[in-house]
């Protein structure tokens, strides 16, 4: 472990990339992953994955050749697509952090019709379901092999 925090350039690239992965949507009235609250959670959540995320951002900078935000929109999308295709485990880790933080945000959860809360203590309701569906299996003869 002993990961160093990301520097300003890395943070800027990460924020731009997060917004490319999940942009804001007017249709669903949700922010993008570059939203200030969500992005702060992303940065805070890097934790023990710091070196891996830094490797992903280094690969990104190699592909972009400049701060990602300085590229035009078309080029940014092109670079992001190439990173996703070629980035391997570091990009998977970075993407995982983005997804988990984005889909934890209260606004996003509410827009999906989900309660933004921990599972405990309220839990969830799961209906019993139709147990008569099991009737065809109940009448089946035992089919385990006898062995002694």
């Amino acid at each position, binding site marked *: 472990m002993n990961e160093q925090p990301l520097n300003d350039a890395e943070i800027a690239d990460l924020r731009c990339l997060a917004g490319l*992965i999940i942009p804001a949507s007017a249709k669903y009235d949700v922010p993008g992953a570059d939203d200030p609250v969500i992005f702060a959670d992303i940065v805070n959540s890097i934790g023990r994955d710091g070196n891996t995320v830094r490797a992903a951002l280094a690969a990104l900078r190699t592909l972009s050749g400049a701060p990602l935000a300085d590229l035009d929109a078309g080029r940014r999308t092109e670079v992001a697509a190439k990173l996703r295709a070629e980035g391997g485990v570091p990009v998977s880790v970075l993407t*995982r952090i983005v997804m988990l933080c984005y889909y934890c945000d209260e606004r996003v959860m509410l827009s999906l019709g989900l309660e933004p809360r921990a*599972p405990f203590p309220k839990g969830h309701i799961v*209906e*019993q379901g139709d147990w008569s569906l099991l009737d065809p299996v109940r009448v089946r003869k035992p089919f*385990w*092999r*006898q062995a002694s």
Partner: protein
Amino acid sequence: MHEKVDVLIIGSGASGAAVAWSLAETKMRILCLEQGEWMKQSDYPSNGRDYEARVFSDYATSPNIRQRPSDYPINDDNSPIKVVNFNAVGGSTVMYTAHYPRLHPSDFRVRSLDGVADDWPIDYTTLEPFFAENDRMTGVSGLAGDPAYPTHEPPMPPLPLGKTGAKIGKTMNQLGWHWWPSDSAIATTEYDGRAPCINLGHCTPACAQGAKASTDITYWPHAIRAGVELRTSCRVREILTGPDGMATGVIYYDIDGIEQFQPAEVIIMACNGVGTPRLLLNSTSGRFPNGLANSSCLLGKNLMFHPWAHVSGYVDEPMDGHRGPPLCLWSQEFYETDRSRGFLRGFNFQFNRTMGVGTEAMNAEANGLLPWGEAHHDTFRAMVGHRMSVGICTEDLPEEHNRVTLDPVLKDRHGIPAPRIDYAIGDNTNRMLDFAIERGKEILAAANARQVHTVRPVVYGGWHLLGTARMGNDPERSVVNSWGRSHDVKNLFIVDGSIFVTSGGVNPTCTIQALALYIADAMKQRLATLFD
């Protein structure tokens, strides 16, 4: 030096807890050394909004990622399946999904029935009363009458079918294939101080409610009330032996890292199929230069996982999603050998409810199903709460080249050599996976699922650590005898999954615990002649 105990158990997980509880009635002085600590339900991930993220940090399934002080590193670079476990009071029952099938009668007679591997020295009938006792102690929910099994009566009713179970049931009926509510170590009624499950849906990384039966809340309270001592944060380095070849006690590091010697009349290993061979291989001496209990040279060999695959897709109907225990149904349609399939032995299907919304997004993205950019939202909203997933748990046959040894370099924080895993999925299992995945796709097709995709093998799927100190009647072909006693060291017993001769094709915890109770009973029957 500590006062000598009658029985020293190493490890407090599934088997260690069961054997401790069972032996407690003898009134012997029993001590259990556990390298981890007592866990607190209030610390478990599902107490917080970040419950999904914690699966990748302090509640990661891999000890190499988790890196708690109680964990030891495992070099599993040379294995397509990574070892997953948990080290605490309760062991990996703290972090399991509580899917609780028994091995089948045929699993104990693999050589006789199918001409592969070896028969066990005991059979299903031998274990049957201990399965029942363990079901009662653990608190198992399920439904009697499954035609895939000999009759047994789980003490609690099954987990609810929910939307997911109903959809799966309809689909399996359409195909004419077996399905049945799983035996689960999850309370569905008030049971031994535990409340019925409230469907938190995040069972595997520890149950914040306490409905899931981990042994820290099942066996251990009873064992401790009966007089067993449980000493935590104590990591055993090696077992010592005397001039007569009998074990005399263990060297361990206490919570402060201080080396201690604990003498004992009897030592019982309950450290799982990786931890047990690791400790025995670390216990070398002039008399036992290849490790303790290793005259057969089989210690650490024949490691079996259950190579796992998933087939998933998205259906039109709403499913339960993240609500409710992940596993609620099984199918044993393809469990028993049918040589026309091109492989021997079989597998079981396990039908999954799915995960939290963040994990669903992460997995869909990783599987290439969820785009980056503008299309992300429309795509994901069509997926959330609609995934149907079929888990495949295949039987792994014992092969000596699949093994646990000591890593020459890697050590834990106490300087004890770490285990190294060398493992490859066998040809028979690969053919079984081919077949099972095709059947899984047929299930998804019958359910009219779209975007069907497969994960093979599940990399972080090495939950079931079996076979590395197998039981048998022949000391040249096994490490322990038919009641768990080492052939070489007559006061050394093993009760964990390492004594499995074959793996079966189902989750092993229930059978591991029944075995531990059976061995405890065998010891109690022989107390006067235990070392003869």
